[in-house]
């Protein structure tokens, strides 16, 4: 296992009063801040029952730099319209399908950037453009994962570190 995954695993342990917040605490805090500030809704931690993810709108975003990894966001089908409408200040019936997808992508962008900035504030990171993806690409093994219930439906966030792709230009062993 690459050393970076050890680091993320260590961050998953519940924090105590005298410890720095863990990555799990950070995910929870950031999700609340993002959803309240720009989507005008609130969330609570929920049990992970993933049947709903089969039809969910999911977005993936990759990051690289001082840390390499990716984040997955899943938004339940019944929450997609209310969330998108709230962000844009529209009625759900006014949304285009393009806008629905773009809001989910932007939500993943904001969550990922805010989380990484809090987890590693001294790091140097670049985020990829988010891309819509299907449930088949949702990965749980080796990822830090949380599910949330919001008044509109369900949200799931999964984040993991991966080993950086070796640079093909780098000289091989002599």
């Amino acid at each position, binding site marked *: 296992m690459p050393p970076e995954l050890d680091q993320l695993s260590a961050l998953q342990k519940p924090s105590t009063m005298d410890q720095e917040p863990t990555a799990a605490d950070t995910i929870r805090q950031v999700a609340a*801040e*993002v959803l309240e*500030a*720009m989507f005008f809704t609130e969330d609570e931690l929920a049990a992970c029952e993933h049947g709903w993810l089969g039809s969910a709108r999911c977005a993936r975003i990759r990051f690289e730099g001082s840390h390499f990894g990716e984040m997955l966001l899943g938004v339940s089908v019944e929450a997609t319209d209310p969330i*998108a409408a709230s*962000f*844009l*200040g529209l009625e759900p019936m006014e949304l285009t399908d*393009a*806008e629905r997808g*773009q*809001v989910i*992508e*932007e939500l993943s*962008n*904001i969550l*990922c*950037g*805010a989380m*990484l*900035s*809090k987890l*590693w*504030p*001294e*790091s*140097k*990171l*670049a*985020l*990829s*453009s988010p891309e819509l993806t299907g449930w088949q690409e949702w990965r749980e093994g080796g990822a830090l994962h949380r599910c949330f219930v919001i008044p509109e439906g369900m949200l799931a966030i999964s984040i993991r570190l991966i080993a950086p792709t070796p640079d093909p230009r780098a000289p091989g062993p002599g």
Partner: protein
Amino acid sequence: MAYSVLIVDDSPVMRSFIRRVLRLSGFEVGECTEAGNGIEALAQLSAHPVDIILTDINMPGMNGEELLRRLGADGTLKTTPAVVISTDATNERIVRMIELGAQGYMSKPFTPETLRDELERVLGDRDASRA
């Protein structure tokens, strides 16, 4: 007086969000143009200079950091105030963007009202410097 604004972000819905805040903030906005990355932004600015640029950082093609670098090197454009609106709140990035000339830095998430307040501050400073 009416302000002309350029919004630079690869997310169309984020551009909509910012445009909505501008409209609701009470600023007299004359022309509000949009670009999906730094390359498009520079092309637009060469044809139509604006009063303020609102730019993301992570964008394909040319990112916001390179855009600010190019603006700073341009004799005409370097006086146009730029506010960064980004998910990146790492210390190094914030310092670098300020050093490159950003007049303000909004890290997402933020409320519409917070963005309004920041725009008022930057436009107020701009107007005061030109008085």
